[in-house]
């Protein structure tokens, strides 16, 4: 039987190339000989049954429209009860929570799959590179690297662990990024976060197939990770700080 990776509402959520996460999951399954298919579940139809779900980022109107459809469709809720993993990034992460802010700041009800609540941040949008140490060492993940671009601050309920502790970036706004509850993972590392963190992709895949996975040749991904991590180290060195100040860039 084929592993169905469902990208939820790509017509509404997917502002930052977030569809890439579904592509990464399917390829990493296929490269191991696991039959997998990418299911693009447009917002016009009911959500299909699947083995793994991805939600992307989206603009304000689209985010509300997607949340509305997810509230009135219990497919995702039932899949999570069955143990299907979910990866939600950026606006998708906010949607899975209890509430998130609309453009004018009023709270909108989310899908309620994660006990988190997002409110509008007081300052400028959080835009830039992020570096996060995984909060739960038991998951066996290396440091997470990515890019964020959002205005919300996200508070976790009691019982919900963060995905990472930040050494760079804004994330939830309290020094942590994202949330993890069972097999539901939310993060502000948007876009192709799984391409930059293949170990996270494999964690989700191993949950979905129910067994450990063979190793893959990740030379390309490793080269990218090394470059990003080196760039962040250089940026935070005293010399890097001076250079960035002189260039006038944040």
């Amino acid at each position, binding site marked *: 039987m084929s592993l169905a990776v469902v990208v939820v509402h790509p017509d*509404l959520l997917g502002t*930052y190339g977030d569809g890439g996460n579904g592509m990464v999951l399917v390829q990493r399954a296929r490269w191991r000989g696991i039959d997998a298919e990418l299911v693009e579940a447009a917002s016009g139809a009911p959500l299909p049954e699947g083995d793994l779900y991805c939600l992307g980022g989206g*603009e304000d*109107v689209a985010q509300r429209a997607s949340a509305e459809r997810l509230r009135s469709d219990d497919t995702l809720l039932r899949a999570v009860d069955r143990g299907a993993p979910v990866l939600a990034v950026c606006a998708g992460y906010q949607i899975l929570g209890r509430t998130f802010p609309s453009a004018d700041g009023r709270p909108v009800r989310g899908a309620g799959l994660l006990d988190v609540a997002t409110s509008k941040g007081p300052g400028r949008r959080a*835009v*830039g590179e992020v570096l996060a140490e995984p909060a739960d060492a038991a998951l066996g993940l290396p440091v997470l690297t990515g890019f964020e671009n959002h205005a919300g601050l996200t508070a976790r309920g009691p019982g919900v662990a963060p995905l990472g502790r930040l050494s760079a970036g804004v994330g939830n706004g309290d020094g942590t990024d994202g949330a993890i509850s069972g097999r539901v993972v939310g993060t502000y590392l948007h876009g*192709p976060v799984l391409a930059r963190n293949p170990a996270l992709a494999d964690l989700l895949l191993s949950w979905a197939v129910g067994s450990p996975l063979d190793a893959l040749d990740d030379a390309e991904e490793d080269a990218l990770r090394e470059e990003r991590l080196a760039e962040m180290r250089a940026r935070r060195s005293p010399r890097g700080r001076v250079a960035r100040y002189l260039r006038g860039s944040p």
Partner: protein
Amino acid sequence: MSRRPLPTRTRAAVAVTRAVNVLSRRFGAGSGTVAGGHAGLAIDPRLLEHLAAGRRVALVSGTNGKTTTTRLLAVALEGSLGSPATNATGSNMPAGHVTALAAAPSGAPAVLEVDEGYLPGLVDRLCPEVVVLLNLSRDQLDRTNEVRMVANRWRRALTTAPVASVVANADDPLVTWAASAAEKPVWVGAGLSWREDAVACPACGGRIEFAPGGNGWACACGFARPRLDVSLEGDDVVLADGRRFPVALALPGRFNRANAAMAAAAAAALGVGWEDSLARIAAVDEVAGRFSLVEVGGRRTRVMLAKNPAGWRELLDLVGPGERPVVVGINARVADGRDPSWLWDVPFERLGARTVVATGERCRDLAVRLHYAEVRHLTVRDEVAAVRAAWIAATREPARTQLEEPGTEKVEVDFVGNYTAFTDLLARAASRGASRSASRSASRGAS
């Protein structure tokens, strides 16, 4: 009004603008289009309004095609209205506009390319006679607003400003939403191949359905593509009254025919005949380096620009089916947007049959994207070395590519870069004095 002398302060500001730009160019500090404008605006904050007074002004904005359409419109006006003031190199914020206007005689018309975010302010300040709205899609999201917000700001600006003619791409729902605030827009069916930013209806938040084959779009709320005044049928521009004009461009690609139709419609709004403007537009074979043929690393290279998913979608139609090796350059500087996540919105799978080399400062991000697209590729950070590597790799695979004999005038390598990757390569080619054939059209060379 044009005969009234400029205020002393404005004349001083113009002199300083020109002087600073001359110095900037001479000492190589820049292209000499921005520094002077900033200095001039510091002396006279209303410099732009003063310089525009008494001119016929046309503004061109949109996510993709701004620089090309601006150039085509400027060329179209040359015959009837004289050489216009124009920011030909893409310095599309007020400092660049000041420089363009300060460099031209006071009565000359102005054709200005405008950054999407600056358009409302400029419409307000310059009272343009024509505004050309090309398209709106995701681009540099780390710097700009959501495209929907941009469309709403355009709409508000056009509601209040007495713009005589808005020439708008009716195939783009966001542009249509903005332009329908104008009194009598000229609707051009210029096409829209990237729809991912246009699905949610700007009028009601519902879902816009696109008819197959680009034959219009509509939302259940009644917001739909307006009746076209100008459409493209193959290589012809067709007007609502049935008149039909062939468009035989030196520039390649469907998107350039669309840019030409938009430019000619704007020229018509300014009183220039269709035959006259299209004939002038047809002769343009290169715009600020786009599609130019330059020598890079000893190889005749066709240089192209694609900086976002919509631009790539169009360009892949052009380069995707070819057989030449292709070098893709990706940077992520401020002018490019610092977040290259958009690479995952580009169907690079379509390059599968080509020899591909990833280059530029973010070549690693591109390499991972190509890896998942299962496109065989090399990764070479230096752009010139990448062009050389592409040629060598391609010649070693005679089965995959049919290469031209050396010594012919054909294109040997295609280079597609995002903004600074593209401008860097052109600058390096020029500095080696290797752009002997830069003015020749790549499309002709290739055909």
